[in-house]
């Protein structure tokens, strides 16, 4: 009878002293998952707009069908971020446009030939496919019926119709390669030119308020609204030929696979895929359309929603879990030091508080320029780790400080060593406060981890981001609702953990 009581008791104190190990092991799980999932995969990046997403999906599927494992990090940001990620090796390939490469990446002031561009890129260890077959440049568009009625096929044809009303975006009115030089080159006579928002311009075009507007040549709206792009017969607009950039040290198989896409996608085809993507809100399905019509490999209907949800959620938990583990590993010792007060204690609490005041977006942006971080999961985890630190440090410190002096002195007077006092007396007595700090961190991390998608780290932020991009509320909710549920679940899980980890004597 006594023996069993004793057994129970020592297992209790054993359990309590294993709290930190338990949390460590618990949060180590995601590390293995991260490592295993990204092993030896080709990582495709894409910019934050529909066409880039679709091309990224096409590249991914092309590689996958060539039995090369590939991952697509959607919507990582703009040109410079993608370029740096490519050079830094965080991604292996991404879709780009020749005009952008010349002007924004190589910063050359004259139009370069493909060979010149390829030569310049090679210096950075980057290769370029031949054009995929479409040119996504500025175009002037008209209603198809109107163009046919007036016999307008090229921009030069506009000279014969000075009465046409024109509505351009404000950007196009001002650009170096915009309206003014265009009018000069073609000697266009139209006087009735207004500035109008891009999206509103399509409505204005449809109801006849304007007859001509500017557009991207592969814009899905062209097909959707039954418009026609006028041929740039004097070659005024620079070429924005779609290509794929890739790291030259990528395997020969992978390069060969990507090069099979060269010349296979014309403007009409690209426009159709963009339209499909915007209509269905599903980039994978749009990409599949390419394979069905082109190379003719029919199967795979893309990831189903449950599969996607599982992938997002798993990655989300990895991000939040791994960063939480780091916060616990560093937060508790820092909290112990901080609990002793003094200048060092003040400094620790001060640092943790300041980190907390930096907006999360700004913190991500601040970390990206560092070589170790860049555009990667590491950056997201580092930012989440820093956010998770304060609640744990503060609660550990205050939990320890709240232990009555008489009990501290009793522990000393008994003759327990400092380590034993900390491990068996002080930390278990502060366990409630420490656990509630960890809980706060976990909930914050699950919420903040949605921002990780901004730097291509995935998670439930991915649908939120593409939803924002497509202005599609359903897609946004596909990420937002699971993220909120996850936060509730985490809260509930920790409430349960309290019952196991907080010593019974403190719960009575």
């Amino acid at each position, binding site marked *: 009878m*006594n023996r069993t*009581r*004793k057994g*129970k*008791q020592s297992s209790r*104190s054993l359990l*309590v002293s294993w709290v930190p190990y338990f949390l460590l092991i618990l949060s180590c799980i995601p590390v293995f998952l991260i490592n295993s999932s990204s092993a030896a995969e080709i990582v495709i990046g894409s910019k934050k707009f529909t066409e880039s997403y679709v091309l990224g999906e096409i590249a991914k599927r092309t590689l996958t069908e060539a039995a090369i494992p590939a991952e697509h990090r959607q919507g990582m940001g703009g040109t410079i971020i993608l370029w740096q990620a490519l050079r830094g090796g965080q991604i292996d390939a991404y879709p780009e446009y020749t005009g952008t490469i010349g002007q924004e990446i190589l910063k050359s002031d004259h139009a370069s030939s493909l060979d010149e561009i390829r030569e310049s890129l090679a210096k950075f260890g980057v290769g370029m496919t031949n054009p995929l077959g479409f040119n996504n440049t500025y175009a002037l568009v008209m209603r198809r019926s109107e163009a046919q009625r007036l016999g307008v096929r090229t921009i030069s044809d506009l000279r014969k119709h000075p009465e046409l009303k024109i509505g351009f975006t404000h950007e196009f009115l001002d650009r170096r390669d915009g309206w003014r030089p265009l009018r000069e080159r073609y000697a266009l006579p139209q006087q009735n030119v207004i500035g109008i928002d891009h999206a509103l311009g399509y409505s204005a075009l449809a109801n006849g308020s304007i007859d001509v507007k500017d557009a991207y040549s592969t814009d899905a709206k062209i097909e959707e609204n039954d418009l026609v792009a006028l041929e740039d017969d004097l070659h005024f607009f620079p070429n924005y030929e779609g290509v794929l950039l890739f790291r030259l040290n990528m395997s020969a198989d992978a390069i060969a696979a990507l090069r099979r896409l060269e010349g296979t996608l014309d403007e009409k085809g690209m426009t159709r895929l963009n339209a499909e993507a915007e209509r269905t809100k599903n980039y994978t399905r749009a990409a599949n359309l390419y394979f069905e019509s082109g190379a003719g490999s029919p199967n795979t209907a893309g990831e189903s929603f449950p599969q996607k949800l599982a992938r997002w959620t798993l990655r989300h938990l990895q991000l939040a879990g791994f960063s939480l583990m780091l916060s616990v590993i560093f937060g508790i010792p820092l909290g112990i030091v901080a609990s002793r007060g003094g200048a060092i204690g003040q400094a620790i609490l001060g640092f943790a508080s300041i980190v907390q005041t930096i907006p999360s977006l700004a913190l991500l942006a601040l970390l990206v320029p560092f070589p170790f971080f860049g555009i990667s999961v590491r950056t997201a985890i580092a930012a989440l780790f820093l956010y998770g630190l304060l609640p744990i440090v503060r609660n550990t410190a205050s939990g320890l400080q709240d232990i009555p002096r*008489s*009990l501290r*002195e*009793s*522990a*000393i*007077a*008994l*003759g*327990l*060593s400092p380590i*034993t006092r900390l491990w*068996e*007396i002080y930390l*278990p*007595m502060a*366990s409630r406060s420490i656990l509630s700090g960890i809980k706060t961190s976990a909930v914050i991390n699950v919420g903040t981890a949605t921002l990780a998608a901004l730097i291509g780290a995935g998670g439930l932020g991915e649908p939120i981001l593409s939803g924002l991009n497509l202005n599609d509320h359903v897609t946004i909710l596909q990420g937002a609702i699971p993220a909120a549920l996850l936060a509730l679940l985490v809260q509930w899980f920790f409430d349960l953990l309290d019952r196991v980890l907080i*010593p*019974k*004597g*403190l719960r*009575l």
Partner: protein
Amino acid sequence: MPASLVSMSALIRLVHVSKGYADATALRSTNLAIERGKTTVVIGPSGCGKSTLLRLIIGLIEPDSGSIEFDGASVTADNVAALRRRIGYVIQEGGLFPHLTARANVVLMARHVGKSQEEMQSRLLELCELTRFSDNLLPRYPVELSGGQRQRVSLMRALMLSPQLLLLDEPLGALDPLVRAALQKDLKEIFARLRQTVLFVTHDLAEAIYFGDEIVLMNGGRIVQKGSVTDLREKPADPFVLEFINAQRGLASL
């Protein structure tokens, strides 16, 4: 010759020990010898320095000057941890750790010095019997015990390693009168049975007279008089001695 005899029987010896805090002197230069096998009661009004004296002996604070000897050896930073295991310490609220059961509180230190389960178990039952604490209550947590029960557990914890010295800092101060009377009686029996050297701090004269082989009366950070209760009554060293005795008597006669 008599001087050496005295030094033989003193377990604790304070020589010119003083302690001050930023705002006040807690203990003026003090000499004191605690005799083996006797109960020495330190008494005096709040702030007289009696708790400081106790905290100096257990090494919770260090003296500004002077030296403290324990069993013939000078107390230093190096040996204070080892010496604490030879001293049992009971404070007013018991000082039990709330996250540990009564049993775990009592065996905590024994476990750390590597006592076997059998040894701890037999000592535990011995102490339960000694302190009149039912062993059925051992699996309970401190919050599940009454104030008197908690003080019995605290006493068991202090006695677990058979200390040479037992320090009690107002151990009965927070108990109601009935529980207090029962515990007083039990404590006195325990001290006698163990022939325990005890240093007992209280502010209650009746309690001091009940327990004290020797009474140390303190005031304003110094020892006013040391002796038996008869000495204090009949040969007061200072007008304060009479004043203190009369004040407490006055209350008692009400």
